[in-house]
C-alpha cells in the first residue's frame, strides 16, 4: 500500500509531500523525501519495552511500572527538569506543560541549544517574516547566513528557493539570486551567486557594517570588516536594495557564535532597515521538525517559548538561568524527564555528569546516548510514523502528521497523560 502526502518528521521543513510504501507493517520504500527523511521514515531499531536500570544492569519493566516510577520521581523532586519536546507532537507538549506547572518544575525545549538566541533577539526587536510559500512565489533574492541547507535542510533549496519556481518567478534558477554568508565554503556556498566568507566571530561586525551602508554611511566603514572587503559589502547592499523581494534564512552559524542572540538581533535590524527600501523578510532555519511547535505550545500556555521555571508557581523565564544546559552544568535540578531529544549526545560533558547523579526518565522510541543515563526509559511510537499529531513548520505553519504504520507502542501523549493523571492523584487527590 502506498500512503501519499505523508509529513516528514525530521527537520523544520516539515515536507508534506512524501510517499511511503507500506508492506505488512513495514515501510519498504520512501518517495520524495531527502536522505535524512528517508532514513528516519524507513525506521531504525526500536527499544522493545520499558527498561529500568538496576545497579549495573537493565531490567525489563511494564509500562505501568515505568509510568508510576516517573510520576513518583517528579512528585518528590524539589526542582525537576522537563526537557526536550521538539521531537514530539504538540498534544504531548501540552501535557508536559501541565506537568511542569503541577510539580513546579522547569520545562525547557531543545531551542535553548538551537534557536533560543534567535528568540531572545526577536524579543528585543521583533521579527519581519513570512511563510515559505511567499518566498517561493516572490523572492528574487535569497540570503543564507550561517546556515547550510544542503546538509541540514536538504529540500529547502528545491522546495522554496534556489530551484523552486513560483508564481512570480517562472524560472527560479535564472531569476532568483542566492547569496551565502559563512565562515566555511560549504556545499551550499558552491551553488551561490555570491559567497561572502567571514572570519570566525565576525558576523556581528559585518551585519553592523551592512546596516550602516544601507543608511548611506559607507565612508565610516574600514576597508575590510572581518575579512570582507568594503567593496563586497557595498555590492551585497546593492543586491538587497535592487531586489523586489529579499529573504534571509539564518542558521546556527549565527546563534552559536560569540554574541549569540546579538548576531540575530543585528540581522533582524538589518532586514527591518531594508524594508524602508524594498520588501525583505528574515527567518530561522529551525532544526527539529517540531521544535517550533514546542515554542508555540509553551508560549500560549505559559507566555514564554522555552526555559520556563515554575518553582515558585508562577512562570519565570530567564534563558541563561532557566535553560537546560545551565541548570545541569550548575547542578540546579534533582530529577529529569527527557522527551523527544537526546541531551547526552548534544550537551557538553559537564551536563551529562549531573545527569549521571540524578534520577532520569526518558521517553524515546530508540536506544540513544541518553539511555545510558536513564533510570527508566519508556519506548513510544514515532510521531509521523506510528503516531499522529500536530507539528509546526519552521515558518509557523501547523501541519498534522500522518500515521503510516500501526504498532502497539503508545504515543508520547498517551504515556504523558497517564503520568499526569497519576501525578494529579498524588498532588491533588
Amino acid at each position, binding site marked *: 500500500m502506498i500512503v501519499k502526502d505523508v509529513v516528514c518528521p525530521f527537520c523544520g521543513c516539515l515536507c508534506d509531500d512524501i510517499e511511503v510504501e507500506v508492506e505488512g507493517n513495514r515501510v519498504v520504500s520512501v518517495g520524495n523525501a531527502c536522505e535524512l527523511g528517508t532514513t528516519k521514515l524507513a525506521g531504525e531499531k526500536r527499544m522493545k519495552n520499558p527498561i529500568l536500570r538496576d545497579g549495573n544492569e537493565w531490567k525489563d519493566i511494564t509500562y505501568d511500572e515505568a509510568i508510576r516510577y516517573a510520576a513518583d520521581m517528579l512528585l518528590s523532586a524539589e526542582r525537576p527538569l522537563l526537557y526536550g519536546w521538539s521531537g514530539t507532537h504538540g498534544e504531548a507538549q501540552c501535557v508536559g506543560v501541565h506537568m511542569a506547572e503541577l510539580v513546579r518544575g522547569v520545562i525547557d525545549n531543545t531551542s535553548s541549544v538551537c534557536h533560543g538566541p534567535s528568540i531572545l533577539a526577536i524579543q528585543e526587536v521583533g521579527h519581519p517574516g513570512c511563510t515559505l*510559500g511567499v518566498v517561493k512565489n516572490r523572492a528574487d533574492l535569497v540570503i543564507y547566513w550561517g546556515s547550510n541547507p544542503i546538509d541540514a535542510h536538504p529540500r529547502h533549496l528545491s522546495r522554496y528557493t534556489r530551484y523552486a519556481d513560483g508564481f512570480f518567478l517562472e524560472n527560479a534558477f535564472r531569476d532568483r539570486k542566492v547569496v551565502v554568508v559563512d565562515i566555511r565554503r560549504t556545499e551550499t556556498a558552491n551553488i551561490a551567486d555570491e559567497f561572502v566568507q567571514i572570519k570566525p566571530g565576525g558576523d556581528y561586525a559585518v551585519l553592523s557594517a551592512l546596516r550602516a551602508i544601507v543608511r548611506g554611511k559607507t565612508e565610516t566603514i574600514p576597508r575590510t570588516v572581518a575579512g570582507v572587503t568594503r567593496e563586497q559589502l557595498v555590492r551585497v547592499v546593492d543586491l538587497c536594495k535592487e531586489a523586489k523581494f529579499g529573504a534571509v534564512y539564518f542558521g546556527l552559524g549565527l546563534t552559536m557564535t560569540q554574541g549569540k542572540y546579538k548576531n540575530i538581533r543585528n540581522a533582524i535590524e538589518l532586514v527591518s532597515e531594508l524594508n524602508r527600501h524594498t520588501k525583505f523578510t528574515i527567518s530561522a532555519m529551525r532544526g527539529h521538525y517540531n521544535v517550533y511547535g514546542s515554542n508555540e505550545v509553551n508560549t500560549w500556555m505559559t507566555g514564554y517559548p522555552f526555559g520556563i521555571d515554575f518553582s515558585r508557581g508562577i512562570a519565570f523565564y530567564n534563558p541563561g538561568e532557566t535553560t537546560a544546559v545551565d541548570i545541569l552544568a550548575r547542578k540546579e535540578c534533582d530529577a529529569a524527564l527527557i522527551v523527544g531529544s537526546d541531551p547526552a549526545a548534544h550537551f557538553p560533558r559537564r551536563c551529562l555528569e549531573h545527569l549521571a547523579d540524578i534520577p532520569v526518565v526518558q521517553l524515546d522510541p530508540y536506544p540513544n546516548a541518553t539511555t545510558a543515563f536513564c533510570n527508566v526509559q519508556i519506548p513510544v511510537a514515532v510521531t509521523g510514523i506510528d503516531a499522529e499529531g500536530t507539528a509546526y513548520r519552521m515558518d509557523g505553519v501547523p501541519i498534522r502528521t500522518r500515521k503510516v504504520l500501526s504498532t502497539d507502542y503508545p504515543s508520547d501523549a498517551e504515556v504523558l497523560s497517564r503520568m499526569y493523571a497519576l501525578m494529579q492523584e498524588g498532588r491533588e487527590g
Partner: protein
Amino acid sequence: MSELLIKNACVIDPLRGINAETMDIAILDGKIVEDVSGAAEVIDARGALTLPGGIDSHTHICGTKVNFGRYMSPEDMRAGRTPRRGPMHSTSGYSVPTTYGNSYRYSAMGYTTLLEGAMAPLEARHTHEEFTYTPLQDTMANALFDGNWGILEAIRDGDTKRVAAIIAWTLRAVKGFAVKLTNPGGTEAWQWGKNVSCIRDPVPYFEVTPAEIIRSVVEANELLHLPHSVHLHCNNLGTPGNYTCTLGSLGLIPDLNPKRQTLYATHVQFHAYGGSGWKDFCSKSEPIARLVNMRPQIVIDMGQVMFGRTTTMTADGPMEFNLYRLHHDKWSNHDVELETGSGIIPVIYRRKNLVNSIMWAIGLELALLTKNPWQCLLTTDNPNGAPFVRYPEIIALLMSKRYRDAEFATIHPDTGSRVPLPAIERELDWYEIAVMTRAGQAKALGIQDLGKGHLGPGAEADVAIYPIRIDEVDPSVDYQKVIEAFGRTEYTIKRGRVVSRRGDCLVDGSNATFWVRPKVSDDYDMGKDPDFIEKFDRYYTVRMRNYPVQEEYLNRNRCIETEAEI
C-alpha cells in the same frame, strides 16, 4: 440531568425586549427552560443585574499572530502572573495573556462567547489548538480573504459565484465562522512592500480595486447565506483623513439581508480620522455616525482606545510597518502565502499625547452618536485599543457624562478643539449597555437562533450575574460602582454550570467551536475544480490534502450548515 434555578434575578434581555424585570431563570442540562423541579440547585441573585453571557464580536485571543505577540513580549508576560490554583492553571501576561489568562479574565467579566477576529486559513489549525485551551468560552473565528489569490482572480474575471465557491470551500476546510476582509487588497500589495491608498486604488498585478473586492465578497457572502455578514477592517487604518475612505467603503454596501446587517465594520475608531496629517489630526466621528444612522445595513464596533500599554496586532501588515516607523520599537510581520499577512508592535497610549487623546475621544463619540445601540458594539479590538479588561471602564464612560468630563480634564489640553465629545450629553442606560455587550453581538453574528445572547427557553444557559442593583445605583454618579460590578461577576454561568464565582474560575471547562459549512452544488465544489486544484498544488507549500483542519481539533463541534445559492 442537572437542574439550576436562579431566583430574584433582575434581568435585562434585549433580544426578548425584557428590561429590568425581576424573574427566575430555570436551567436544565445546559439549556434555559420554562421550569425545573424542586430538586434544582438554587442561586439567589437577590435582585442583582442579570444578563445573558457576554459576547465579544471582535477580539484577538487565539492564533499565529496573537501567539507571536506573546512570544516577542516577555516584558508583557511579567504583568499579571498567577500560579496554578485549584482548577485554574497558571497565567501570564497583561496585553497578550496566555490562553488561560484570556479565558479566566473574560469569564470573570461574564463573557461566555468570543469571536477571534482574524484567522489566516493556512494557519487555522493553530487558532483551533488555542481555542482548546480557552476553556470557558465558546469560540468562533473569522477567516481572512483580503489577499486570497483565487478570489482576486475570480473578481478580476467578474465571477462572483466563484468567489462564493472559494469562500465556501475554505470556510469548510479551516472550520471558519465568517468572512473577514482586512485592508482588502492591501495585504497582497504589502507582500511587495506596497499598500493601497483607498478603495479605488488597484492591487498590483491582480488589477482589482478594494471597492470591487468588498462589493463582490459581500454579494458572495449573501449567496452562501452565512449567519454573519462580511466583517470588514477598512483600508487606510490609522491614517489622518482616512474617514473619507471609510465613508466610501460603507457607502458601497446595499441592504441585502432582512435579518441582520449586510456589513460589519470593525474598530471604526481607527478609521474615523480627519486632518491632512498629524498636525491637524481631528475626530470625524460625526460624519461616520451620521452615515451609520442612515444605513441599517451597517453595524460597527468601537475599537475604543484606553490609555496605557498594550500590543497592536492585525492582519494589516503595511499599517503595522507605518506604526513601527513612528515608534521605532519592536516590529514583527508575518505574510501568509496566497492569502493575507499580519503585523505586531507594542504601543503605549498616553494621556499627554494629543493624537492618543483624540483617538480615545473618537471611540466614545461613535458609541454616543450612533442612535441605535444595535448598530455600534462595544470593543477595544482587543488588544489593539486596549486589553479587554478595560471594558468596565468603557461601560462607565458611556453611562456617565460626569466620568467623561473628569477623564477629559486629564488629557491633552488641545483635544477639546479637535473633537465633539465635550458637547455630547448622552448617557447610555443599562439596557443599551446590554445590547452593546451581548444582544447586539448575537444579532450581528447571526447566532441568536443558536441560543446565544438571550435567556429565552431553549437558549444556551450562558448567564452573567453582576454584583449590582440597578435600582440603587445611579451610573452617571456612581460610575466607580459600575466599573467594579462589570469587572467581576457574582456568578458566571456557562452552559448551565457556574464556571466563575467572584473572579475565581471553578471548573476546567470545555468550549464549543462554531463553524459554517455552506452546501454548494458539485459545479461549485472547489475540491473538484481542476483549475483550483492545479493552482493550489503549484503555489501553496502545503499539499491540498493536508490543508483542511481535521475534526480532532474541535472540542464540541457546532457545525452550522447553510443552503447556498450556488
